[in-house]
Structures are given as structure tokens and as C-alpha cells.
């Protein structure tokens, strides 16, 4: 793997770390398998890009993007808790609806940011070399988000959310409306994912309606890889493991893409297949290990 590919993987790992934090929040904390993320990632990208296109500051454009993600997640939560639609199906419905919404927002299936300013411009103005700017900025944002999430899980509200995922009957008996907790939690998760989408779009210079395909699987893979690397532990450790897992996942992908066996090499379009295999392997490895051990 070249140095360029390595830096690229770090950059991807950190920026998608935001998305992985979101997936961790729903998948592990709330025990809510949420596929909305495949739609809320391009949603964040679309909102941010269109705002920048309309002349808004790139940093300020992150605010409406994040809010849009929260609303998308909240819709999934409401479909599940108020209309009693199965969680998985609720999230698929929102995801499908977002496809149309994202095209409406952009006015077409993609939106280019060519020649527009992005969040990376102020760093370039400071003289930070461009290969360093993106990984550094994304690392900062993702670590800040992780710290905020850890802080949140220790608040009264955060604790109620943890208990909602762990034992809904118990926390209901203690006076918490678990429906509201799910709406809030899935909303926060998708807010993180949309923020991630906005940053990705600004980094690659365009938003595309299809950029979210496979997000959930990449997120799950990262969460599981992080858990495998760091082992089980307290919530704070698991949240950091999610970020680490995201970086490890992107490094593994970069490594796979640089592999050459004879005339065969992987193409970027093989990513989804590789990811699916990685997830299956990571999910079954602990069981296999136990079987082999006796």
C-alpha cells in the first residue's frame, strides 16, 4: 500500500467514524437495526452541498445537514413507536423515501461542488498541506463527537437510553417513555450519519444520491471489527472501539484493493462483497473459536 493510499484510508476511517458512531448508537445501544443510514448519509451530503451552492458557509452548512439527518431518524423512530411498524421495515421505508427526497433537494441525482469552498479551505489558507488537512480535521471532528457521545451516555437522559436498549420493561416501570427514547436515539444516530455525509461530499467535491449504498454494512463491519480488536468493556471503551474499528476497516479495504495476485486485483466495485465477507467472518469468528477451543 502506498503512503497516499494509507493517508486516504485514515481520512476515510475518521470521516466515516462519525457514521460508525451513529450505527453503534442504534445497533448496540438501542438494539435497533437501522437502515435509514443508507438514505441519511446522502441526505446530509445533499443538504450541505445545496446550501454551499446557495452561498452558505461550508461550516454553517453542516448545521442544516445534521438537523435533516435527525429528522430522518426521528421519522423512522416514529414509524416504529407510534405506528408500530417493525423497526427494520420502518427504517427501510424511510430509506426508500429519502432516495426521492434527496433527488428533490438537489434537483438532480448529483450535485457538484466544483469551485465551491469547503470545510478544508480554511486549513489550506493556514498553510496546512492538503494531504494532511482532511485526515486531521476529520480525526478532530470524530474524536470530539465520540467524547460528546460518551458524555451523553453518562447523563440521566443517556442512562435512560442505555436502559431502553437493555431492558425496556424495567425502564418503563421507572417512568421513562421508551418510544421517545427510541425517536431521540435514532434521530441522534442519523444526525451523526448526515454530518458524516456532508463532510464526505465536501471532501470528494460532490454529493450523489447513490453514495449511501452499503453504509449500514460498512458501519456494522466497523463496529464489529472495533469490538474484536478492543474486546468487550464499558460503554466509553466501546465507543472508542467503534472509531478505531472504522479506521481499521478502511485500512483493511485499502489493503485489499492494493492486493495483486497474478493478473487479478480487486476493483472498488468489489467493496460491498468484501465487506459482506468481512462482516460474516467477524460475526462467526467468536463462535468458531469457542467450538475449536472445546
Amino acid at each position, binding site marked *: 500500500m502506498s503512503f497516499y493510499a494509507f493517508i486516504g484510508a485514515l481520512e476515510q476511517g475518521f470521516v466515516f467514524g462519525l457514521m460508525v458512531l451513529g450505527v453503534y448508537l442504534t445497533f448496540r445501544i438501542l438494539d435497533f437495526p437501522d437502515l435509514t443510514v443508507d438514505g441519511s448519509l446522502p441526505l446530509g451530503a445533499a443538504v450541505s452541498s445545496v446550501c454551499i451552492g446557495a452561498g452558505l458557509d461550508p461550516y454553517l452548512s453542516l448545521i442544516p445537514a445534521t438537523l435533516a439527518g435527525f429528522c430522518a431518524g426521528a421519522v423512522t423512530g416514529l414509524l416504529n413507536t407510534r405506528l408500530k411498524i417493525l423497526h427494520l421495515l420502518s427504517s427501510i421505508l424511510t430509506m426508500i423515501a429519502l432516495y426521492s427526497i434527496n433527488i428533490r433537494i438537489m434537483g438532480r441525482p448529483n450535485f457538484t461542488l466544483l469551485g465551491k469552498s469547503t470545510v478544508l479551505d480554511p486549513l489550506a489558507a493556514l498553510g496546512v498541506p492538503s494531504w494532511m488537512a482532511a485526515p486531521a480535521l476529520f480525526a478532530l471532528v470524530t474524536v470530539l463527537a465520540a467524547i460528546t457521545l460518551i458524555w*451523553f451516555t*453518562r*447523563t*440521566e*437522559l*443517556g*442512562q*435512560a437510553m*442505555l*436502559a431502553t436498549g*437493555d*431492558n425496556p*420493561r*424495567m*425502564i*418503563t*416501570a*421507572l*417512568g*421513562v*417513555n*421508551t418510544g421517545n427514547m427510541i425517536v431521540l436515539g435514532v434521530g441522534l444516530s442519523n444526525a451523526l450519519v448526515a454530518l458524516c455525509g456532508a463532510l464526505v461530499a465536501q471532501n470528494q467535491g460532490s454529493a450523489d444520491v447513490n453514495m449511501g449504498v452499503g453504509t449500514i454494512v460498512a458501519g456494522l463491519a466497523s463496529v464489529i471489527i472495533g469490538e474484536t480488536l478492543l474486546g468487550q468493556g464499558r460503554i466509553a471503551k466501546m465507543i472508542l472501539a467503534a472509531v478505531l474499528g472504522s479506521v481499521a476497516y478502511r485500512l483493511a479495504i485499502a489493503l485489499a484493493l492494493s492486493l495483486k495476485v497474478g493478473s487479478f486485483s480487486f476493483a472498488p466495485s468489489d467493496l460491498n462483497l468484501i465487506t459482506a465477507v468481512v462482516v460474516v467472518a467477524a460475526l462467526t469468528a467468536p463462535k468458531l473459536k469457542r467450538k475449536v477451543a472445546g
Partner: protein
Amino acid sequence: MLTLTGITKRFHKGSINEVLALDGVDLDIRRGDFITVIGSNGAGKSTTLNCVAGCFMPDKGTITLNGETITAWPEYKRARFIGRVFQDPLMGSAASLSIEENMALADRRGKVRGLSAGVKTRDRERYRELLSRIGLGLEDRLKDKVGLLSGGQRQSLTMIMATMVRPEILLLDEHTAALDPKTAGHVLELTDKIVESQKLTTLMVTHNMNHALKLGNRLIMMHQGRVILDIDGEKKSRFNVEDLLERFFSLKGEAFSSDKMLLV
């Protein structure tokens, strides 16, 4: 204080599995009552408790608390004045959270939850003191995950959690049935102590007639979704297990034979 009037509830309505779980239950719970509830399987004991807790809405009838109708209140809203301990010891606490975190969650029952710290340093001493009363050594394990505790320890913890914010009414749903006899004895003793010291209004479902007679000031027997016996005070203290069984079988329309005593 808490009044159930004509509560009727059918489950699986319209299917072949339709059951009439509650058939016009009238019950007036007075402040300070410690009521034990007995009856055979499917008599409606747990359903009555769940109805008070708000796990479902009755088909007919009303529930009032201190004169206010609460029939339509959802479960989480009623939690403000209800403390609960379930039959399953795993049901009353969150396994992945620590003892102190679980207690802090219970400490906010019925209050608004905001963004201040979940477990507050100033509360730890109080948690430790509460735990030391049950004599299981949990006061030195505040940071341990609840999932590490035994069933008896978890049920004792749930008992503390249900009463650390004084509930207007305490609901105990066969909370010792899943424990071994010795542990069940401990938890029951703890129950008696807490109810006594806080003068709690309590509704306790049990399968054990001895427990039903020994504890509380009032006893009700249920059968096929109806209250068929309601005795209290002096009258209750004169009852023994044989009397209960005789009453049970005569009301069921069966002759009481002494070999049924073997079942006790």
C-alpha cells in the same frame, strides 16, 4: 385510595384463543393496605396487577387514584406513583449497567431526566447505606455490572429500587416464585421490613398460601377473573391454610377433600 370498578379484560379478542382474563373486578385499596393476592393459575392475579400498572387498557371499567381517573394513563406515566417488582429477577434491573447506575435510574422515577450526571457523587453514600440494609455485601460493589449478580441479589436490588422513591403503591408480582426457598425467605423478609418501615400500600401476588396469610393485613382470593374472597384484619388473622383451601374449593363448587391438602 386506589379503586378498580368493574374491570373487564379479554385477551386475543375474536380468536379461538379468546380468554376472559378479568370479569368485572371491583377492588377498593385503602391507604396503608398490604394486600396479598392468591388464586389458581389463570385466575387473573397478575392481570389485575398489570392493569393497575397500566400495561394494557381494560375493555371496561375504571381505575381511580385519590379520586382522579387514571384508566387511560400509559404505563410510564403511572410509574410516578407505582413501584414494581416482577416475577423474573432479570426483569427489574438493566444487566449491562452497574449497581449504582441502576439505582440512579430508579432514583429518578417519575422525575424529568436531563443532561446532568446520571450517577451523582453526593448520592453514592445514600445508595451504599440502602444496600447495606439488605446485608448482601452489595454496598461494596457499586461499580459492578448487575448482570454479575445472582437472582436473589438482583431481586433484593429491585426491591430497593422500587421503593427508594416512595411509591404510593407497591406492586409485587410473585416476586419470590423464581427463587430458591432460602433466598425467597430473605427477599420476603426484606419486603416485610420495607413495607412496614415506609408504611407502603402494597399489592402482592403469591402462590404460597402461608406467605399470603403471614404477610399483610388483607387477603383476596381470585378465581376465573373475579375476586371471590376479600378478608382483612381480625378475620384474616384467624384464617389458616385449611380454611383457605376449603373456601377455595367450595367457591369453585368442588367438595373439599383432605387429600388435596397434600398439594400445599
